[in-house]
């Protein structure tokens, strides 16, 4: 198992820039998520780490060795493809043993190892079957088997659950995470599903348009997004933005929205022009005494909680509140925000402004 370091990696396809200057480190044994919308360069980044794509510039270190220009076969890594890519002309056992045969391992040792892996994944009974008739879950297990059989330095997975149906996905993601915890293998996992990333990942990199937006543990990214893009991409419903035209100064600890003054974490960075205050739906509270008002325009019932859409002076926002509070359409309610959780964004660049609350996360990452 190994640490993986990406330094200033860039990839161009002709005139199109797929990944621009990425730098991050994946620690040994980490379950690492590459998250972003489709076309953001996350798969390209993964394929460069795996050696299926060569970087235009920059360095990739696996286990301390620079491998950027080495072919995939010399990197000692395993790759799980979205469509599994099981060799259709071989049965399950042959598929799993295939990586071992390339190393010239003797036949009896191969058989033993395959049996071991099949045991771990619970597919011992289907080793002789052709891969054609397998269910999605079993295909997934065979693909994992082919990956773990070789004890590679790292596992790379490109949306491995994307081809499964929703119900089975949950089960498989637990299985995957369990497998990782048992083997303690460095795993890099590409997904566009923010929920999957938050559930499974030790660390997340959020990418957009080939640029890394933020890097960190899931909770830090959720609580203290570095940009409006991350704030919108992560969380469902996403973070609310209360847009306003004005200024915040260094050391400011409040903003004025409409006629109300809201406390914010003390700012370490000032800005003026188009700004917005970001607040997660669960941090929007109803408070009848508040002068800041909103009108209910939609109610989504979700069991224990409900999502209330409100029209305010600074645009539409969503609040996640307990279902026990009765809410009716067109109701006018007073609103309050949990001031410790607020982030101020500067709209032009879409970046979060540094405050005492988020400086640990934003400077650390």
């Amino acid at each position, binding site marked *: 198992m190994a640490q993986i370091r990406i330094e200033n990696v860039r990839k161009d396809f002709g005139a199109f820039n797929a990944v621009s200057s990425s730098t991050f480190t994946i620690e040994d044994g980490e379950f690492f998520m590459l998250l972003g919308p489709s076309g953001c360069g996350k798969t390209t980044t993964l394929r460069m780490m795996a050696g299926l794509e060569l970087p235009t510039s920059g360095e990739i270190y696996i286990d301390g060795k620079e491998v950027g220009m080495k072919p995939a076969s010399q*990197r*000692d890594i395993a790759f799980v493809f979205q*469509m599994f*890519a099981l*060799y*259709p002309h071989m049965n399950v056992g042959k598929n799993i043993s295939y990586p071992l045969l390339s190393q010239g391992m003797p036949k009896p040792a191969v058989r033993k190892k395959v049996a071991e892996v099949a045991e771990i994944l619970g597919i011992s009974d289907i080793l002789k079957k052709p891969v054609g008739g397998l269910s999605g879950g079993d295909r997934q297990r065979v693909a994992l088997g082919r990956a773990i059989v070789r004890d590679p330095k790292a596992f790379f997975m490109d949306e491995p659950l994307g081809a499964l149906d929703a119900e089975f996905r949950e089960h498989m993601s637990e299985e995957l995470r369990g497998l990782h915890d048992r083997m303690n293998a460095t795993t890099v996992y590409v997904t566009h599903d923010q929920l999957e990333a938050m559930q499974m990942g030790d660390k997340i990199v959020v990418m957009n348009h080939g640029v890394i937006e933020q890097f960190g543990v899931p909770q830090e990214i959720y609580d203290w997004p570095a940009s409006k893009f991350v704030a919108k991409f992560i969380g469902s419903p996403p973070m609310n933005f209360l847009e306003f035209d004005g200024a915040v100064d260094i050391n400011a600890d409040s903003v004025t929205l409409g006629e109300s003054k809201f406390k914010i974490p003390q700012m370490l960075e000032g800005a003026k022009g188009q700004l917005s205050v970001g607040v997660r739906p669960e941090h929007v509270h109803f408070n009848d005494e508040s002068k800041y008002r909103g009108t209910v325009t939609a109610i989504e019932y979700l069991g224990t909680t409900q999502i209330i859409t409100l029209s305010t002076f600074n645009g539409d926002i969503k609040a996640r509140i307990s279902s026990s509070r009765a809410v009716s359409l067109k109701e006018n309610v007073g609103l309050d925000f949990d001031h410790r959780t607020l982030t101020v964004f500067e709209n032009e660049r879409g970046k979060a402004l540094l405050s005492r609350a988020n400086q640990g996360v934003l400077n650390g990452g």
Partner: protein
Amino acid sequence: MSNFSATEPSSRQKWVAGTLVILYAVITMLPLLWIIATGFKSPSDSIAYPPKVMFEPTLEGYVNLFTTRTRATPEILEKLGEPATWYDRIVRQYNMVISGPSRYLERFFNSVIIGFGSTFFAIVLGTLAAYAFSRFKVPLKDDLLFFILSTRMMPPIAVAIPIFLMFRQLGLNDTHAGMILLYTAINLSLAVWLIHGFIDEIPIEYEEAALVDGYTRFQAFYKVVLPQASTGIASTAIFCLIFAWNEYALAVLLTSGTAQTAPPFIPTIIGVGGQDWPAVAAGATIFLMPVMIFTVLLRKHLLRGITFGAVRK
């Protein structure tokens, strides 16, 4: 009305369809059967009028095909005594003796060497080229592919004279190498196009999986792509072989002895002073066999090759 029915056709419909198919098969098979039958007729039966459907089979045609014979005087025949073998006996009926083997076998093996040789080269080169076109960034890919296709837009015989002149300059006239080269060149465009389509259908992930599993690109191509493209390659091979095997016009023009293939040779069997149709038919029958066997062996692939593109996996 829809062109497709989701229901099982009625037994009457099946009966009609079956009859039509059988009828069509009989009509197309009839000339073939006639040739095979003629091969077993005696020369007089073969030109009898009205044509004989029922006849006494004889191997005369085959004996005449494989041997050269000379007429012998009664004295010589007397001296030779009783014929030693069954084929001697057949020849003696006409007061002839076998003077040696004919050239048919030679020509037949020329066909085998040139037909299978050119098919082999067309398939090997075609597969490699198709793989490159399918997987790599080839500059001007579409133009090159179109150029390759364009070589098939005229009948090969249209360039027979230039080829003849070139071959004469290069000393390739009437050589095996020349004919293999020519048929390979003609078949290559078909091979590239057909196999290109088949390889395009194979997801690239299979190879990438093999690459990360520790195989080189050539190993991945050889062990993962080839087995999966085998169907397509086999059907392409049949098409190439059928062309090279049956080609007549260029063979007539460019071969005369050493490298002459069976198609231009068979008509020369007719001979002088009497047309030996049974021998011609026997030659044609034997000539048909290799392609027939090859096609039957690979028929599953051939079917898939013909319907290629029509059905998505």
